[in-house]
């Protein structure tokens, strides 16, 4: 459910909404993870991820095996050495928010909503949103979304800088193309400056959250 194009130095990954039962399932995650690895090898200047509709809305509860695959994927996405622009266009919840936050610039359509999901489902434990949200915006927002299950509309998300800009996929493409014209060394240096000593803390946090997810999942059964 993914298509890929390479144009004008931008490696575009389109994530197509597979529909409610399959969104953020283990197959979808592994397919996306493979495309991240391809993007890394492609060595394009910029990666653009276009998320169709509610493709990044998690279907609670997320099985432990999917969480493991998700966490691998998030680390690979976060570690890409080129800028990643993502366009969001629907519900972005739980691990989907983690994937969005692992990107560098988030452009969201006017219908986009973001959240960590229902606390009863503990979806905030899946996908690294805890660490990434705290790192990107702050612990107060993370804890508010986690405990209340509130979903933010795009204007509120933009006010919190959860999204960089409100716009359509053309706007996100324009961002990506603008970046692709920068010298590769500049892009690399800027990206590396945002990733100083974070790989290990992120991995530690993902492993711990995954273990907490197992605890919750076991208790449910």
């Amino acid at each position, binding site marked *: 459910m993914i298509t890929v194009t390479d144009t004008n130095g931008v490696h575009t990954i389109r994530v197509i909404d597979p529909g409610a039962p399959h969104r953020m399932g283990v197959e979808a995650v592994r397919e996306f993870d493979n495309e991240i690895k391809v993007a890394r090898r492609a060595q394009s200047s910029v990666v653009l991820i276009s998320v169709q509709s509610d493709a990044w809305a998690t279907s609670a509860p997320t099985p432990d095996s999917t969480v493991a695959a998700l966490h691998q994927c998030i680390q690979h996405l976060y570690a890409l050495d080129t800028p990643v622009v993502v366009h969001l266009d629907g519900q972005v919840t739980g691990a989907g928010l983690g994937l969005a936050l692992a990107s560098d610039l988030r452009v969201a359509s006017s219908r986009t909503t973001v959240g960590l999901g229902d606390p009863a489902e503990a979806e905030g434990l899946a996908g690294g949103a805890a660490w990434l949200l705290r790192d990107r915006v702050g612990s107060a927002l993370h804890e508010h979304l986690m405990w209340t299950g509130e979903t933010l509309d795009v204007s509120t998300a933009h006010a919190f800088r959860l999204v960089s800009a409100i716009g359509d996929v053309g706007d996100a493409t324009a961002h990506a193309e603008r970046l692709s014209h920068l010298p590769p*060394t500049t892009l690399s*240096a800027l990206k*590396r400056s945002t990733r*100083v*000593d*974070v*790989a*290990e803390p992120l991995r530690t946090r993902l492993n711990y959250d995954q273990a907490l997810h197992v605890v919750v999942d076991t208790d449910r059964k």
Partner: protein
Amino acid sequence: MPTPSTNPSRPEPLPDRPAVRVDLHGHVTVLTIDRPATRNALSTEVLSGLVAGLKDASQDPDVRAVVLTGGPHLFASGADLRELREISPADYLQSERLKAWPAIAGFKKPIVAAVAGYVLGGGCEIALSCDLIIAADNATLGQPEINLGIIPGAGGTQRWSRVAGRFAAADIVLGGRTVDAWTARRLGIVSEVVPAELVVERAIEAATRLATKSPIAARLGKAALRASEEIGVTAGLDFERSQLAVLLSTQDHREGIDAFLGKRIAHFEGR
């Protein structure tokens, strides 16, 4: 991980250029491992090149420090598996390659390792034998020997324990875990993490700073630091004191004190 040949019975032809390139930067010798086709696997040829380079540096009074590197993309990926696969225990214990390790660890002048990319197995052990490690932001360090059914044989178990503590060492030596440059920095192994493009340059700067110090003091200071890994505190303090006593008889020590009191830069001549 060490790089296996696609055909273990047919070694690749060696390039014409030496396995270890030697360059001089003022008082610093830079030894660059130059076998990118094999990811700088530590073949007998490479290790012999390092030994020869260090021997020349040791005998040259103008050389006061050494930089060991593989360039900005990788350091050394470990043992050459083609050589390691068939070797018997007896041959291993008598092999030429074993002479490289004491030559590196026993080198009396300061060595700065400029590491980048894969710094694994024997490559990591070489780095740990040096006095300072400058790591590129793309460096990954580790001892993956356990994944091959063996263990480090050139100091990995001993040096990781001493520099990072037994528990962190177990994660690396027994678990085969690798660490990135920043983690190595936090473990205290790496003194500085720099952009890969600058790792050799920064290592040369660091070595040049070391080269401005009294070469005799540097040698005796290094001996005292190494001794701290071998002997107890009381004996170590005695050794340190004896090294200092020797230095008090040198012209360099008078020059150093005179320069400090005269608010000028000292010029040490190694006498």
